[in-house]
């Protein structure tokens, strides 16, 4: 297989969610002298981007998103340490979690997949994430963005509690806070002090990119 063929196969196998094939092709590519960057930026990310686009259009469905995301995650586990060595700048680090009291995770997982597809480094804290855990994870991973998900009107108030705790820990200026979930609205996001809200996964990715670009531009001035 030429490098070009490996990249093309990777693109196709992510698209159909063939995890074992994606792993094998990734290892084969690396052994063959193909760097982690072309594998990520010329095969995996474009493929998952296409999966996301199809999902947004209604051509792809939840199971297809999930298996494509899982296939990509396997390859990312191999590539991440290699990419860290090359010092390549990621699009951004995104810390994600479902708030305390809430165990819903499907929507959150879909957003994670779309973010990874857009090149974000996603750290998923899972469900039932307490304010303390959010704060500790921000200190540990220093993410650009913290995403909080809530599926219930009774757990949405945790956004405000979390943001309050992040502020109290002196970390609010360091991170962009995004919130989302079925019952959440833009007005609610504004009222609880978040920096942004997105109604669906694709919008979340666009918003995350825009806010990071804005912040980086500001930092350069």
């Amino acid at each position, binding site marked *: 297989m030429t490098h070009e063929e490996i990249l093309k196969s990777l693109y196709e196998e992510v698209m159909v969610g063939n995890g074992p094939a994606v792993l094998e092709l990734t290892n084969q590519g690396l052994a063959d002298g193909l760097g982690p960057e072309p594998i990520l930026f010329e095969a995996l990310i474009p493929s998952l981007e296409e999966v996301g686009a199809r999902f947004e259009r209604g051509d792809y469905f939840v199971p297809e998103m999930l298996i494509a995301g899982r296939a990509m995650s396997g390859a990312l586990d191999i590539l991440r340490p290699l990419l860290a060595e090359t010092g390549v700048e990621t699009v951004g680090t995104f810390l994600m979690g479902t708030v305390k*009291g809430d*165990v819903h995770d499907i929507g959150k997982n879909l957003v994670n997949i779309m973010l990874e597809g857009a090149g974000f480094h996603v750290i998923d804290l899972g469900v039932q994430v307490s304010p303390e855990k959010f704060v500790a994870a921000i200190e540990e991973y220093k993410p650009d963005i913290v995403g909080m998900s809530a599926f219930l*009107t009774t757990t949405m108030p945790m956004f405000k509690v979390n943001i309050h705790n992040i502020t109290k820990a002196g970390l609010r200026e360091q991170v962009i806070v995004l919130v989302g979930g079925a019952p959440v609205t833009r007005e609610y996001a504004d009222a609880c002090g978040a920096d942004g809200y997105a109604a669906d996964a694709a919008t979340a990715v666009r918003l995350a990119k825009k806010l990071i670009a804005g912040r980086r531009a500001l930092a350069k001035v």
Partner: protein
Amino acid sequence: MHTVISSPNKTVTIGCDQPFCIIGERINPTGRKKFQEQLRAGDLSSVEIDVHAQIAGGATMLDVNMGAPFVDEPQMLANAIKLIQSITDLPLCIDSSVFEALEAGLAAYEGKALINSVTAEDERMAMIFPLVKKYGGAIIALPNDEFEIPDAPERRLELVDHIVRTATDKYGIPIEDIVIDPLAMPIGADSTMVVRTLETIEMIRQKYGLNTTLGASNVSFGMPDRHTLNSVFIPMAMQSGLTSAIMDSRTGQIVTAVRAADLMKGNDEWGANWIAAHRAKIAQAS
């Protein structure tokens, strides 16, 4: 076992020897931006439209949920219940995760309501069971606690056991007034989840004979042709012992599948309901 829910002029009996209880899910602002805006302005006109559409579709009971950001949920739930009871005799399922809203809803409701819901968390049970006792409703209980929604049917059964014992022994709630929601998860997120839900229903029926309900539309989330999936899932669950569902009662395909399953299960004697529904459809078409 029979769970009896009532309004001043109508009684609905939930049980495995009864026609399946279709609880219309539509009076719920989640994911409906326009409805939410109306509620914030105190406008309940959408509720009226939804009530009529669900009755026309064949609902036997209506679920009422008024949970939306910046809405005074207790007040709005009480208002909605009064409005709905002025339009229809169908008994209601009062749906909120907010204690104060359940209390306001129950105070406003005339009759014996179905209350949606409590979990296996001790703190939640300590709040909600006294309310059930005070107003005399039946309670939907979910076998999850503050730590998990268990995947394994056996673990869900342990939580059901905890709920049943707490409700009956500690609060004196009649066992027939406990309806278990065995938790229906989207098939698109995990292809093995529906089988586990069916197993849970079966085990609840065998061990306790309790009535069961679930949010049926959840099963098809994220999949194409949701109506077909829903209309197959509910009859399958009925065969496992499901006796009611909070579901889309406006979609003929799903309601028809449920009524066909009633007939097959022997809960529609001589097919009288099935034939009557057929005639009604013909009369409407002509």
